[in-house]
């Protein structure tokens, strides 16, 4: 069942088009994530959904009810949309429990107490209930903000860069915890972040945003392994492009061997209108698509290496001069300039028409 729907939403600040035809849907109980670089319009999108910004075109619907249209918007306080702000926006004159109870004013005292106790337990702050905001840590403040937003059981929970104020170690731990909390509450949530690890750890669905619209709305797995275009392939994860020659509808030959898999439709028959000969494509190879194998006859020169603990990320120079990345278990410590044997371990191919 669709909880949130954006239909070609546009929004601009003066002459600058911040959101430009943004469309996606989020089903009830799912966690969605808008991922993008700063300035891509993701926070503005969130604020439009919350009801803090008007929209210029399209429509936003929550539970099937239109909440934003050009020239009209349901006031934020009537949307039943919870929001966790980037800096939490906690009420410093209230205690932890009072902050959480703030959105429960319409309930009876007993019902309020019960719901607050339930949430305190859910976010693990039962012992901190009477603390003031300056008496708890950043991570605890983050969880108070989450509990406060969840307390009135909103139809939709919005989170704006929820972990950006925390240090890296805490960020990783909390993103797992937050996902568990949201799932335990059965909440429908939309999260905005610029950190793909965070997006992958939290979300069921991730929409990569670019220039005010969704470049691809998909599962984290598919974004990584089946990027819809070059922008996504560049933005998500690491990788290198190798020139490939299309052999057939499902086959591409690269310097490292022949790969089976997806080929852009206009190159299907192996040749195309623009290219005189066979169609040339850029093939995306992730670092885990190339494995180190001493027995392999295919040799590549180590150009640089980055130690990652469990593995090395090697940048390899191929015989043709092209470059590729390879993740190699870290006991294979090779010197820069050394030639090492590699082989292709990709079970599918991701290829894009060559630019130009």
């Amino acid at each position: 069942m669709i909880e949130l729907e954006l239909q070609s939403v546009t929004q601009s600040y003066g002459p600058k088009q911040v959101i430009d035809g943004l469309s996606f849907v989020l089903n009830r109980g799912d966690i969605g994530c808008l991922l993008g670089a700063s300035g891509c319009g993701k926070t503005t999108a969130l604020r439009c959904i919350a009801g803090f910004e008007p929209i210029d075109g399209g429509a936003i619907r929550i539970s099937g009810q239109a909440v934003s249209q050009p020239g009209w918007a349901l006031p934020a306080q009537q949307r039943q949309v919870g929001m966790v702000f980037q800096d939490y926006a906690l009420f410093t004159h209230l205690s932890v429990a009072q902050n959480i109870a703030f959105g429960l004013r319409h309930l009876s005292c007993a019902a309020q107490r019960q719901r607050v106790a339930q949430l305190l337990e859910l976010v693990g702050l039962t012992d901190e209930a009477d603390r003031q905001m300056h008496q708890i840590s950043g991570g605890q403040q983050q969880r108070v903000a989450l509990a406060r937003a969840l307390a009135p059981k909103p139809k939709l929970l919005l989170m704006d860069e929820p972990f950006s104020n925390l240090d890296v170690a805490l960020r990783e731990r909390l993103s797992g915890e937050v996902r568990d909390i949201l799932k335990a509450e059965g909440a429908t949530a939309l999260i905005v972040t610029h950190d793909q690890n965070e997006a992958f750890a939290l979300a069921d669905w991730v929409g990569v945003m670019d220039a005010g619209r969704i470049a691809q709305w998909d599962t984290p797995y598919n974004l990584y392994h089946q990027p819809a275009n070059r922008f996504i392939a560049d933005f998500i994860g690491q990788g290198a492009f190798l020139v490939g020659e299309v052999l057939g509808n499902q086959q591409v030959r690269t310097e490292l061997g022949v790969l089976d898999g997806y080929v852009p439709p206009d190159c299907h028959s192996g040749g195309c209108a623009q290219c005189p000969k066979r169609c040339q494509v850029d093939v995306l190879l992730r670092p885990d698509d190339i494995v180190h194998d001493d027995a392999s006859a295919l040799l590549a020169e180590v150009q640089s290496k980055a130690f990652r603990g469990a593995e090395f990320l090697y940048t390899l120079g191929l015989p043709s001069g092209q470059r590729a990345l390879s993740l190699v278990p870290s006991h294979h410590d090779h010197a820069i300039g050394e030639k090492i044997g590699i082989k292709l371990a990709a079970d599918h191919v991701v290829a894009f028409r060559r630019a130009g």
Partner: protein
Amino acid sequence: MLKKPNGWLLTAGAVAALVLVPVVVSLLSFAQVDAGILRHLGEFVLPDLLRNTVWLLLGVGLGVTLLGVSLAALVALCEFPGRRWLQWALMLPLALPAYVSAFVMIDLLDYSGPLQAWLRATWGVAQLPDIRSGWGVVLVLSFSLYPYVYLIARNAFASQGSVALEAAQALGMAPLQGFFRVALPMARPWIAAGLLLALMETLADFGTMAVFNFDTFTTAIYKAWYGLFSLPAAAQLSSVLLLFVLVMVVIEQRSRRGMRYGAVGRSASTRRRKLQPVASALALIYALLVLVLAFAVPVTQLLRWSVASAAQDLDARYWTFLWHSILLASLGAALVVGVALLLAYAGRQQPGGMMTWLQRLATLGYAFPGAVLAVGLFIPVAALDGWLATLVQSWLGVESTGWLKGTLLVMLLAYLVRFLAVAFGPLNNGLQRIGRNVDEAAHSMGVHGQALVALVHWPALRLSLQTAAMLTFVDIVKEMPITLMTRPFGWDTLAVRIFEMTSEGEWQRAALPAMAIVLVAMVPMVLLASRREEAHD
């Protein structure tokens, strides 16, 4: 283990000790009781003073809170035409000393003034409540002192108000309700701090009370000194006034602590709520009305009077007043900034709990009314002087009435205590921005000692020094009771001239010196505002 006190701690300790002198002197005055005067004070003076002071504090407190908070909220949380300009212009009344708007307002609102004359002629209104009364003082002081609340509350609203309102909205609360339930309570420590500054100024005010002939402690101290010729009586009144001040200081320190706690996860993003046309118009009218009453009307009237009296008053004596004001303010500012710099540097060289405590004590003088400082520093300096004179006579046989009396010493010391905090604030902030690692980076590049000060500290501190000197200079030019009570013979300044003219009811002839003070006081406001604009762009 007790550490050996070092030079920096001793320096800070000496400055802090100076602040304690007037307090100790006021308290010691009870050792020398004149029963007759004390009975007179207790029976006829004190009850009135206490009643007047309490009502004044309540009235001005209410007035500045209503004006300051409402204007701050409008400017920080709402967007309407003219807002950018108003947010700066609403500080302008700070350039107008309360004693100046006092005599202009009396003239305009008095029975014989233009407003009442017009009301009588047009509407047949017989009479408004007498302006020369408690409510008149409250009115003038509220319009004059609201910027203290406005400035500090505006910062609070701007830094956390709008996001708090949105948070309340996301929890189902309409914006206006959210303002009263969230933004206002969250800003309480800031509002309290601004309010207390305004109340301290109210307690310290001498000029306005003198113009209104309204009896409070400051005017009573002055009268005890000049009317009863009783220094102990003046000091005893001082000690009661200091009791009020002490209460204010304690509450203020507590609200400052609240500000530190309240500053959890503050955001820099400010999204103001766009007002509808009607609301915009109302907001604009309200803010303009305050600005007109608090600034435009008094200044216009001053200008008219200045022009009318220029031919008569713009003589050599006027230039002497001006020269004295500038000379005193320059000397005072140099002394105050020098000591403030020393105090701030001491804190940097020798940081620690003890130093922080001494610095806080040393800068407490801003809370002391000028009249208290005048009495509290005159008495010990006079005593020292007498002791010196006997000493010199017994050793050298030279007859003398003293060397310190009749010099600028008492006045400059009093300025130092009263305005040290004004200079210390910007200097300390400036010094703190030059972190210790900046010193270490310079050391690593072979820059030490004087070169470090000349190449690193001085350029970084130049703006802070300018700000500190400018603010102190203006404060001294505006200052009335210290200058009036401790000036050497013949050292009349602009403020003294205003006091003399207004005490004779010659409003018009007070206008020219008043205009000069307002112009001087506007310089730093314009400079600081434009500097801030640059920093924002």
